[in-house]
């Protein structure tokens, strides 16, 4: 299924996230990942979403119908700087530990916790790096995994990123 990356600039008011989530549920749209946080302007928050499905036009229009939504920007591939953070705990029997650490080094993953038979890595970067690392670690066995949700900023000096206007 095709995935789309959108940034939604909203008024920093209580319940905005609930409004967005409720609208997605009601309209039967699917959110793949979601990250919310403050912006340079304390009256605004930014929601970065990866959404599934072919209904992008409707999703954008329905977002705009929410009174607290100010701007919706869809980022086409390559038009934005994208980052995500992941914590992943993998099986690491002492006999294979150095092998795993060497591999992690190549992916620029940082070991942040070590247990008797596990290592927990932090990986930051483009979503593809995270998925590559995960793919590699599957051979050792992934015990648990958490992702922050993708965040993105449109690249500077490039007007290619489409800001979908309210008029159709």
């Amino acid at each position, binding site marked *: 299924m095709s995935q789309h990356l959108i940034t939604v600039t*909203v*008024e920093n008011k*209580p*319940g905005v996230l*609930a*409004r967005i989530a*409720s*609208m997605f549920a*009601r309209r039967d749209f699917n959110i793949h990942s979601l990250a919310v946080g403050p912006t340079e302007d304390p009256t605004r928050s930014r929601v970065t979403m990866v959404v599934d499905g072919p209904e992008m*036009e*409707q999703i954008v*229009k*329905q977002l*705009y*119908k*929410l*009174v*607290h*939504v*100010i701007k919706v920007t869809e980022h086409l591939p390559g038009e934005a700087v994208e980052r995500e953070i992941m914590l992943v705990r993998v099986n690491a029997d002492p006999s294979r530990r150095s092998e795993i650490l060497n591999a992690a080094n190549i992916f620029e993953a940082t070991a942040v916790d070590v247990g008797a038979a596990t290592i927990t890595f932090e990986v930051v970067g483009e979503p593809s790096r995270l998925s590559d690392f995960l793919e590699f670690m599957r051979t050792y066995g992934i015990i648990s995994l958490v992702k922050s949700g993708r965040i993105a900023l449109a690249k500077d000096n490039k007007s290619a990123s489409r800001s979908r206007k*309210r*008029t*159709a």
Partner: protein
Amino acid sequence: MADQLNGAAILIRSLEHEDVEVIFGVPGGAILQAYDELYSSPIRHVLARHEQGGGHMASGYAHATGRVGVTFATSGPGVTNLITPLADAYMDSIPIVAITAQVSSAKIGLDAFQETHTWGITMPVTKHNYLVTKIEEISSTVREAFHLASTGRPGPVLVDITKDALADEMEWHGPQEIDLPGYRPSVKGHPRQVKAAIEAIINSERPVLYAGGGVIRAGASNELRAFAKQQNLPVVTTLMARGAVPDSHPLTLGMPGMHGTYTASTAMQRSDLLIAIGARFDDRVTGDTEFFAPGAKIIHVDVDPAEISKIRKADIPIVGDAKAVLDQLLAQGAERLGGDAAPPRTEWLATLARWQRDFPLAYEQDPEGPIQQQYVIDQLSKRSGPDTIVVAGVGQHQMWTSQFWGFEKPNTWINSGGLGTMGYAVPAAIGAQAGMPERTVIAIDGDGCFQMTFQELITAAIEQIPVKIAVLNNANLGMVRQWQKLFYGERYSATEMSHTIPNIPMLAEAMGCAGLRAETPADVIPTIEKGLAINDRPVVMEFVCDPDAMVFPMIVAGGSNDEILMGPEDVK
């Protein structure tokens, strides 16, 4: 000089600033303070017998007057009872503002007495909603609520205010500016799109102007009629747009869709260009979208961009207010025609006229048989002026009224279209009558609908709101029974009611209304004449009708609009 006021006083003053003349509601614990201030306000309060009634009254008021209807309810059950009218107004884009009270801010989340999560449960059924916990926010929130309810695509807005915010005091300096950076509805259409639309219309051989409720809400009926005339366009009016053009106008084809006229539905099917204005391609209009108007290009004018291409891809989308865009289309059309006449479309119009002649809406009243519902509506319509406001509930009686009432003016037809709320008619009629005291308001109701909300007639009698209710009593939940007859092998599961219980005229009298009954066709006209002559109190006219009468034409739900059942003989 600023006044030291409590939150409730600020609320009431803010409503006075919005020129609110009437509030429909029910008091309770959390909202007591607001009612205390209302006691000394010039705003009229109509005490509903149930919050659902109060909400539908506000909706009927808004329908009839074009102004924002206002309803009050207390916390908890007051709010949950209000959900249906909110959802109803949301589906039909009716501007209402609901003011509800919430438990004190310190008690929120603690399962206090009559606490419910109002903001959360009303979010999906309102255009926008608020939880106000501070007195400072009351005034600006009321201003925003009225602005949101009445502009862009209208709709219900709810303002939930905590008990402590209503009780606190502050210096009040009058209404405040609103700040809605994310709310900028488009009004005018894009000139290039308007131009493209006119070109498409002039080049069209089989156009149909598809008018929806947005035309009524925008007050664009005159513009619509002028545009139909200028471009020589036949017009279909959806259930929400009945009256947008006069039914007596030669270009009017009536209602399209599931129970629409053969000509309206078939014109859309054969059309090469649909000009949708304030309409949303509802499934009751389109049937199975795969087979809907297969040869038509689509011009879609709507103030809500999300409606455009939601169901059917628009070839020429125009975002804007129906009235503003029709003005643009009229100007552009006049310029493009440059004094020439619009294309005559002789063949197309002749075809439509032939269909209208060959497939009219019809019924037969056997003088010895049971009363046919269509006959009652027809006779009521013939005896009522064009300014009469007609209200309906949901079901067979609603469809027959849409079919057989001759609508000549906008804002004279009030019904629950999108949500299909049974029980809508009685309270909505009361709201309409409260807003339009000089007009005749007639609700045409079914016995099923009537029994959902008739208690509001007590409100009407005590408040001296002399609505007229015609109950077409077929002793059944008629539309469900019709489906059971046609598609469920006549297994009448849970649809049978009674011709005798309740005794409707006695019930009416008990509620302070006049109660009349017609049992035979010969009784119909005298009963109508008697009922229409009573103006000092509400009147309930019961017509004992035929349980087997069915609504036709009919397009089976989810079927193709090419397959129109004209009568029971067409059902396989």
